[in-house]
């Protein structure tokens, strides 16, 4: 990175207006912000050929270099089990496995995955037979709206497989913290992951609720 000039503005709002008039988008002269390409004629679409092993099946794709894995899955392949929540790597809803590791498909250029193995939520059950963690999610009500759920399950499988779910419950919580749930089902997600890892007995967390009717008070 080379050194560069910053912007100094005296009359703040006026400066914004003036700059806006010049280019419509106020851009710092900092090299980090250089957008010379914006004012040139954009290049035509840049195509890349890749082959992926998607849930066990090899498939060839011709993609735009800009295509992220999440958009390849959702828009091109109509594999909508993987969800787009924020598109900037902050929520975890787009989590899939690449070569056995949980990663964020929204921050992955599909072009960089040529030759790799990808497993999505669509690939973890065996026909009618659900993955034990999916069963646990049903038993523990580890979801509400269901939108973050595929990502939670993919992270959960990794969490269990890497040994983080069967030690302390705090460790399990930590390793599941890369997946936001706004509804929020965290205690039930934790229970599902811990039970599947064998760290807690199989149970319905709702059976711990103790309802009381007025008569018995």
């Amino acid at each position, binding site marked *: 990175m080379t050194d560069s000039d910053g912007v100094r503005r005296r009359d703040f709002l006026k400066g914004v207006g003036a700059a806006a008039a010049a280019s419509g988008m106020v851009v710092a002269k900092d090299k980090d912000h250089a957008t010379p390409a914006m004012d040139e004629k954009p290049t035509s679409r840049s195509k890349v050929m890749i082959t992926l092993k998607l849930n066990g099946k090899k498939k060839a794709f011709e993609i735009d270099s800009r295509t992220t894995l999440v958009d390849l899955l959702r828009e091109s392949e109509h594999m909508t089990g993987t969800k787009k929540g924020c598109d900037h790597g902050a929520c975890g809803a787009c989590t899939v496995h690449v070569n056995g590791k949980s990663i964020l498909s929204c921050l992955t250029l599909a072009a960089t995955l040529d030759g790799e193995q990808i497993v999505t939520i669509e690939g973890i059950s065996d026909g009618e037979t659900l993955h034990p963690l999916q069963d646990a*999610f049903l038993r523990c009500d580890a979801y509400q*709206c269901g*939108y973050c759920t595929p990502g939670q399950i993919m992270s959960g499988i990794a969490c269990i497989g890497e040994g983080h779910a069967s030690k302390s419950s*705090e460790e399990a919580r930590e390793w599941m913290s890369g997946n936001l749930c706004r509804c929020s089902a965290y205690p039930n997600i934790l229970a599902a992951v811990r039970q599947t890892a064998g760290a807690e007995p199989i149970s319905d967390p709702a059976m711990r609720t103790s309802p009381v009717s007025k008569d018995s*008070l």
Partner: protein
Amino acid sequence: MTAFEVITLNGSVGKSIVRRSGHEKVTGTATFTAEWPVDGLLHAVAVPSNVARGKVKSIDISVAESMPGVRLIVTKKNLPTFTRVKTMIESNKSTNYTSHLFPVAEVEAFFAGQYMAAVVAESFEDARDAALAVKIDYEIGEHVTDIDASPADERPDDLFGSPAVITKGDAEKQFEAAEVKIDSEYPTAGNYHNPIEPHATIAQWSEKNGEPFLTVYETSQGLAMSQKTYSQLFGLSPKQVRVVCKFIGGAFGSKGAMWPQAVLACLCAKAVGAPVKIEVTRGQMYGGTGHRTPMRQRVQIGARSDGKITSIIHSGVASVSVKDVYDEAFTMSTRMMYQTESLRLDQRRCRLNSQVPTFMRAPAETPGMFAVESAIDELAYELKMDPMELRALNEPEKDLIESKPFSGRLLLDCLKRGGDAFGWQAGHQVPRQKKDGNWLIGHGVSAATYPAFFFPTQAKLTWNADGRVLISCCSQEMGTGTATVQSQLVADVLGIPLHRVSMDLGDTDLPPGGISGGSATTGSLGGALLDSIKDLKSKLIELLPVNSPMRKADAKQTTIRNGKLTMNGGTIDIEQLLTETHKRSVTGSGKFAPAKDSEYAAHSFGAQFVEVAVDEKLGLVRLRRMLGCFACGTILNARTGRSQFIGGMIMGVGHALQEATHWDHRYGRITNDNLSEYHVPVNADIPNIEILWIDTPDFNASPIGAKGIGEIGITGVAAAIANAVFNATGRRVRELPITPASVMATV
């Protein structure tokens, strides 16, 4: 004698039943709005204003339109015509659009985030990148985005049917004369709902019977209202509009009204002659799809030295946008929480160059209860009283303003039961008593409350000759388990096995449901189904042979029980009856609407307990335990019910400790418009949560004894946490969110 007929529910109601939608959700096969496969679909991305106030001088699309994949750039010049419909508030809910401003249709921007243009392209990335290249030049005007810089010189028009100022007695005078006084201010930051599923709309224009037909897939908590809005926008009859949403990926109020992307998708689809999908980017959701306004509240409580409250004054200001209003009724719960000799509720409003705010989980109660329950805790401390005892001493018999008795209260029972389970130590709560290494441990308690709302709802119930019973209602599913709990209700009332009952929802081809909001769906739809059962019963009776005794009897004497028509001395198998009369099915229709004026004050109540650990040197507040005990009437499903309470409480954690919208007020722009910097709770934030409930049915409020549970969980959390922080440290934080800076500042 209760307002509604008492019904006995002792079948599947109350049990822990796995959700009907569970399998689809855990396999990723539930279809959310942006996932509907539509042939020839194009993608659109909006170009939002990046100034808080400005007149458009020019829009330069020259670079954008030559980028790959771009089909059309939509500006005011080529925007298809539409009718400027009234807003939801102005039209008294005959539309659900939130604003006077329409996407791309304005020559002026009134807030940063207002859609000023749009790009329609072949792929999402084509549209996104071309949208970044659209250059809009503004003549910049003056703006204000800081609630503390905008004059609070207006009054809200209407606070859930009440005026902005409500008085009982002379609260100022009694406050001045009080032996013990609390007078505190409670500022709260603006919050964003941030459902994990972004708002989205797919709009498709087609033809049906030679007329235009509009199909819209929309992330909407109110499909029937959206249908009405689209028909008015585009001069169609509602029969020419179909709106579909089978699964909402979280809403919390943000999808309860119609936002600009929905209208924009329809306009783009019309302009380009192809179906168009808009998935609002996360960044554009801050300023594009509603928020909870920041507020400045003040609570004054005057009391005698024995703890009896003589006056309460709850006042403050909430913001609205410069062009549109939505008033957050933060003083609402203060009308009925505590007995007092005098009361003054006083709300003002100020204008900001932000998007119009909207309802966010437990609107009114969430901010209001933080202020009041903190003030009550301050009063208890001042009086050296147990806050539980203070509440018991000031428990009202009736709502103070309308003087109506409560349909069901049980607040003190929740406090007692919850306190026992939590291990609440009775008496004056002395701060700084418990340490664990570097952590100061504290306990806090707060009341929780939410009104029992109901919305007009219609439903159909179809009994098939093969034994399946189908509920049909255009209600919405956003994690509430609507299909499951209503199936349980119907199975229970009819006395048939649960597996025979299912529900179709999420489609305006079905009978209109209300907005899935206000915790109203379960009770409203339940009421409509009870009505449908009556109609179904009549229709079945009509099928009987003319000489059947049941035919002649009063319909009330005939019931459906265990899958049979039953009357004294006789039963008739329904499937057999249908088969014999050559009917494949029979359908009963029903509806429910809340009474215009109930004789009861209908609310749910609860008690919220929290144990915190505070590290004063590092400014950390961490949660050790949470417990909620709630009285919301009948709980239909122990599994989903517990999840709803937990979910509300966790959102309360975010509200209390993390969530704040940050601004650069010089630009009038939100600076933390992403989920990395706008913090919501993560799994590691959440301790063990215990949920208790008292499920005494409330048939004064609800036709099925259930009052709704989706929102009450959030309402007591912020105060419970703030009270616990005080108990831990001896210092009170009155501003939300409680941050490391604020915890350290008190040291």
